[in-house]
């Protein structure tokens, strides 16, 4: 498979993920707007709890989409690698693994960002209400700090994967080739 074909595949996959993210964002905005429409005027104060994280989330998603659509060439170049390797089969395997990692990374970022924003926002709101009323509500019986740490870990993993997870890809390529050689040796001996 030529480098041009690999680049096209990478771009198609990236744009596919971008379209998925766009669709999901559109659906979540629509459902949030429906919630706001049916909210009574007494609960109008609580709308901030939906609108602010949703606004931040939308901005983040727009940034991700911008990167995926406008800089798809940049990303696909990064996935394929700067220089052709000696053997095209190694280049192809590394490319596919890097693509898998980038796609998983984008999904990690896409899944963790909204929860991170909401958790941080709820934590700040709770801190403010605790300061004013002296009481604090803890979500799901778990510390909000634990939630924040959890999503920061997931976001960091997502960034590492979206960057192409070089160590992991190198190890996987090595193991794949090892398995291929082992299998061909077994077939030759039998």
């Amino acid at each position, binding site marked *: 498979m030529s480098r041009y074909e690999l680049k096209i595949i990478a771009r198609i996959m990236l744009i596919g993920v971008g379209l998925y993210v766009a669709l999901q964002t559109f659906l979540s905005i629509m459902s949030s707007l429906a919630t706001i429409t049916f909210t009574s005027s007494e609960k109008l104060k609580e709308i901030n709890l939906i609108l602010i994280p949703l606004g931040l989330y939308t901005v983040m998603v727009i940034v991700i989409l911008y990167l995926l659509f406008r800089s798809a060439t940049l990303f696909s170049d990064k996935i394929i690698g700067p220089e052709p390797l000696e053997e095209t089969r190694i280049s192809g395997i590394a490319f596919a*693994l890097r693509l*898998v990692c980038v796609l998983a990374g984008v999904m*990690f970022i896409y899944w963790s960002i909204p929860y991170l924003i909401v958790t941080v926002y709820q934590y700040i709101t709770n801190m403010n209400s605790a300061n004013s009323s002296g009481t604090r509500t803890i979500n799901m019986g*778990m510390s909000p700090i634990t939630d924040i740490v959890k999503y920061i870990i997931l976001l960091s993993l997502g960034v590492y994967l979206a960057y192409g997870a070089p160590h992991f890809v190198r190890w996987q390529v090595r*193991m794949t080739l090892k398995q*291929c050689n082992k*299998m061909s040796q077994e077939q030759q001996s039998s």
Partner: protein
Amino acid sequence: MTRPHLIAKLILLMAGIHLLMHSLSGIISIVSALHQNFVPETLTLRVCIEILKTIVTLVMSLLLLFWSGWLVRILTGQTPDRVEIVSNRWIIAGFRFTVCFCGLLCFYNRILMLFYYVPAIIKGPNALSYTTLQGQTSLISAKILVGILVEIAAWIITIYLILGAPHYINWQLRSSAVKQGVKI
């Protein structure tokens, strides 16, 4: 194995892994159904539905993971006379990419659940139990215990997938070679 066969097998493999993880969470649903305060008739029905759902999901996942040949043949239809046979190297690589991708996606959920169950392991089952009006705690603890066991199984599967599931891929390769040999 031809290219359409490989693509079909990989898609079915992804579906199979998804269903396998789903069936694991079904076990927790069964224990949750036992915990909820239903009248006996409804409880039996609810538990039966959950058990049936889990068994069906598990059977379907095993079919997709280990005996998907017949479904692949249905999906790909009749193979034309001149079809390029995919080399073993690309079969191994294709399976590895797929299991790796599924493993990474499962890893996300495992990290989420890790932060839920670790306090229970450290502080004991009561750490995560929420109080009901009836003050039931025994079944909640059982739920957490089952949850931890299911989570351990899910972690083992996830790590095996991220490592590339070498034994499973070897088995797939051998079985497809045997089938090619007998011209099924």
